[in-house]
């Protein structure tokens, strides 16, 4: 197809080449306003982004405004497209984890989890995943859920000028990161969840650290609730803003806190449990206010529910000490359990001693499994999990080889961002920032 035949974007807002253009760089805009007033223009098109502090990455928002009212809002995405899905087709199934974890980098565990659950369904080993591995997956997902919600609430507050909300949120998020780093070795982009289980077992003292973390995070959450929920400015800025009812959510395929803020308690963890979520005791908070304020409240409440799940995970980890964290099938599980060495790298001296000293077959097996990977029978599956942003889906196709034929992620942010127009149009320009924050998307996931 030639460039001429390629369908283009919907075009510029105005065909008029004489239309005045202003470029604003965040200083005093009064001269621009005066110039616009002098030209007697009421209707102004504003390009917000792609680099704007409130756009959670590189989102371009095209706003048509009349005075302070937004008459049209369009989102332009693609500035962070990195071709992750295409790249995954050229890497082994296991290597794919390191790619998909970088999509929505604020909630990386969810991509890892949904991808690995999909592979396990393709392999037909869903029931063979050890219980301890599932507990660790749930623990990681819930820690990440808290982190993601805290970023959503914290940056949302920061964008309205309340820096303390952000700093408090990030302090609490750091506490969750300490646990994640202790267990996986990394704060984000962990590549911890692997096909068949998780990459390594917990280090000594992990359960105690988890139990010590819970009250700390709870205290910060309480602090944030005190700061926000009765604050008249906060209420004034969020209540009744960015309204979207149930019918709108259904039409636009919106899931997650936005859907639950309309009163529908749809949560994949309850509707279609995975990783043993049906055995945990937790609630799905809902609201019927359908506005930005109720979404903040829901995210706060979900953080408390996640803490409940994490406490249950700690008990289960204590009870299942010493049990495997990877499927028994040696054709899928990597052969060594790594331990953190003094150099900060994962290593297993016993395994090195075995493959270098005693068993050449073990060395060959290890080499083949890591470089070539394992084969996945041909077919396709669709797997979903409840990410903090909504329903995260993955469509995996295998051609029977060691690499995915196709891996497609349905990022909830990509879908939910379509609601931006309906959330903003007819409202004030200052509320656009609130609407963006209440959708809670991450451009890494949106653009992939």
């Amino acid at each position, binding site marked *: 197809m030639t460039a001429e035949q390629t369908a283009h974007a919907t075009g510029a807002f105005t065909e008029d080449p004489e239309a005045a253009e202003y470029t604003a760089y965040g200083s005093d805009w009064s001269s621009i306003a005066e110039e616009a007033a002098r030209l007697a223009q009421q209707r102004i098109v504003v390009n917000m982004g792609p680099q704007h502090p409130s756009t959670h990455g590189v989102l371009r928002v095209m706003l048509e405004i009349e005075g302070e009212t937004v008459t049209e809002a369009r989102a332009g995405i693609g500035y962070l497209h990195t071709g992750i899905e295409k790249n995954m087709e*050229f890497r082994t199934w296991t290597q794919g984890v390191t790619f998909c974890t970088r999509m929505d980098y604020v909630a990386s565990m969810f991509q890892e989890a949904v991808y690995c659950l999909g592979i396990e369904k393709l392999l037909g080993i869903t029931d063979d995943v050890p219980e301890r591995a599932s507990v660790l997956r749930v623990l990681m997902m819930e820690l990440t859920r808290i982190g993601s919600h805290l970023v959503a609430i914290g940056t949302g507050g920061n964008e309205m000028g309340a820096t303390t909300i952000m700093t408090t949120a990030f302090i609490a998020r750091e506490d969750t990161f300490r646990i994640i780093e202790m267990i996986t070795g990394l704060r984000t982009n962990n590549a911890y969840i692997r096909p068949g289980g998780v990459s390594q077992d917990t280090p000594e003292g992990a359960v105690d650290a988890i139990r010590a973390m819970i009250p700390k995070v709870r205290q910060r959450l309480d602090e944030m609730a005190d700061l926000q929920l009765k604050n008249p400015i906060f209420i004034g800025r969020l209540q009744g803003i960015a309204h979207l009812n149930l019918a709108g959510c259904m039409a636009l*395929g919106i899931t997650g806190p936005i859907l639950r803020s309309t009163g529908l308690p749809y949560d994949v963890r309850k509707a279609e449990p995975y990783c043993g979520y049906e055995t945990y005791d937790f609630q799905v908070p809902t609201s019927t206010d359908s506005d930005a304020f109720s979404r903040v409240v829901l995210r706060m409440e979900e953080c408390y529910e996640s803490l409940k799940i994490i406490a249950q995970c700690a008990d289960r980890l204590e009870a299942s000490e010493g049990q495997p964290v990877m499927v028994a099938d040696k054709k899928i599980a990597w052969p060594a359990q790594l331990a953190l060495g003094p150099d900060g790298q994962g290593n297993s001296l016993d395994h090195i001693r075995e493959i270098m000293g005693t068993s050449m077959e073990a060395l060959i097996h290890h080499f083949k499994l890591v470089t070539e990977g394992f084969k996945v029978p041909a077919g396709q599956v669709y797997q979903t999990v409840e990410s903090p942003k909504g329903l995260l889906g993955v469509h995996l196709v295998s051609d029977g080889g060691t690499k995915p034929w196709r891996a497609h992620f349905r990022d909830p942010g990509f879908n939910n961002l379509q609601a931006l127009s309906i959330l903003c149009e007819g409202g004030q320009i200052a509320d656009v920032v609130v609407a963006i924050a209440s959708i809670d998307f991450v451009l890494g996931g949106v653009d992939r």
Partner: protein
Amino acid sequence: MSDDLTPATPDMGDRTPVTLINVREGMFGAGGDTSGYAGLVRTIEMPGASERPYGEWFDGVVDVLEELLGDDADDAIESVVVDRGELTLYVNRDHLLAVARHLRDDQDLRFEICLGVSGVHYPADEGRELHAVFPMQSITHNRRLRVEVALSEDDARLPSLTSIYPANNWHERETWDFFGIIFDGHPSLARIEMPDDWVGHPQRKDYPLGGIPVEYKGAEIPSPDTRRQYR
């Protein structure tokens, strides 16, 4: 590994194959095959059409859909595949809108949300190279099924579902962008991830990954798509 000799496709019994995923030659992919197995040709197929009973709730859904479609049912539903506990309906594109409307509106089906569309490219499947895959989610009945439409590369068009599922707007733009599948009736089928003036559709299998060879400790490491691959 000894399992190199086991078939890559699951035992399908006498199921008629629906989709030819790939034809593989030799032991390895790109980069030259030095194994001596260059003459080896294997066809890799998707699990084929299933026979009734399909099991679980699948029979009921297919029955209701066939009843609603009436005389068109045979034309509309090309085949039904049940694999790994998931139901796939291969639908003829001429009847896609009718099928989607029934799936959304009928009280026994009620698939309220379409989770977007995922394109897949099977260059070896002649006349059916491009597939559009629509996962449908029913919140009322807590079910999910997959509607799949196979298209020829030369005539890669199908009706847009945006009139029934407005959420598919961006998903269809993405599939157009990456696969060149044209969704007729889409309000604004423009590229969404790639720049507007981009040429080609990057997720097609004949579109190169790109990348340059990298030197590491004196050795040259080829880019990922030109390395010898264990396919």
